[in-house]
């Protein structure tokens, strides 16, 4: 009976005491500001939206929120933070209207920067993404954007970049560099972005 009472008291204690389970710490983005994460247990919600805001969920599903010290977080999570891959880097080339082939002269400059980036990244990938302006149909622009990307891919291969590193995509007119009404010929939107990651 006595042992049973101790056992029951122990269970009650465990049930009433907040045992931490998982912790989330929001980190500043490259610009020093923080985005937002929304945490949820079966019992509670918690939003984190400031640099070094953190919350841990207890075994009772309740969040304990606080603001952490930046240096302490960098120390505590030094190993996981040191293993973060380098941020991808993107270069942009622009095209003449409706054309998939007439590249502007800055190609050579971009190529030099690309080659340097490829040498810098471990297991480098080169992603070539074509974009169009908003002249023409969506379907035509999807095809044109892929052709632009393929044109650049071929030039990169000619320049000595291994084709196996390169993948190609076309975003059509979904992602204009400068927002315009449909049907507007906007030079800055006729472009190919080359990302190394």
């Amino acid at each position: 009976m006595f042992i049973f009472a101790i056992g029951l008291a122990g269970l009650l204690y465990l049930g009433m005491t907040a045992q931490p389970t998982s912790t989330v710490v929001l980190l500043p983005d490259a610009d020093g500001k923080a985005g937002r994460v929304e945490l949820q247990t079966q019992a509670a919600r918690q939003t984190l939206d400031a640099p070094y805001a953190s919350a841990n969920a207890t075994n009772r599903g309740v969040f304990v929120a606080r603001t952490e010290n930046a240096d302490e977080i960098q120390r505590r999570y030094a190993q996981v933070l040191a293993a973060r891959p380098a941020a991808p880097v993107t270069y942009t080339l622009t095209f003449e209207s409706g054309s998939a082939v007439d590249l502007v002269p800055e190609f050579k400059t971009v190529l030099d920067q690309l080659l340097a980036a490829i040498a810098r990244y471990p297991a480098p990938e080169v992603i070539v993404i074509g974009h169009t302006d908003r002249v023409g149909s969506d379907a035509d622009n999807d095809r044109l954007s892929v052709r632009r990307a393929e044109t650049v891919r071929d030039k990169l291969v000619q320049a000595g970049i291994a084709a196996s590193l390169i993948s190609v995509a076309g975003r059509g007119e979904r992602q204009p560099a400068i927002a315009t009404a449909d049907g507007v010929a906007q030079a800055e939107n006729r472009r190919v972005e080359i990302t190394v990651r």
Partner: protein
Amino acid sequence: MDIFKSITLATALSLAGLHALAGNEAGVVKISKGAVTVERDQQKLPASVGTRIFSSDRVTTGSDGAVGITLHDNTLLSAGPNSTVDLNKFAFDSTTHAGTIDATVKRGTLSVISGKIAKATPEAVRFSAPGMTLGVRGTSFVIDAGP
């Protein structure tokens, strides 16, 4: 010719089968330190720089281990020592940016810098840790699931 056709078909089918088993290719290991293992279809494979990561893979690190993975939507993941992370589901359409990320941190630490899917459809990105789930609105954070 018929034999050649059927061999080609059989090869194509078996490749398709393998692909279905392995799931979508999700990303590439960029940093690997100490013991890092990928578990796929009940097999454990060592993961080094350049190893491809697929949807449904489990990534584990040893006490001296750490791993950095760039996913195909530019999401940057890293795991610290003594970590187990399940990439339950990954899909990404490079034309529309539609996709899904669903990952679970079973133990240890995971750092996330969100990518194109979180930007296009934040509700399609979900991370889980013991006792909680996270919705992401374009950002950088660390999940510590404990030992």
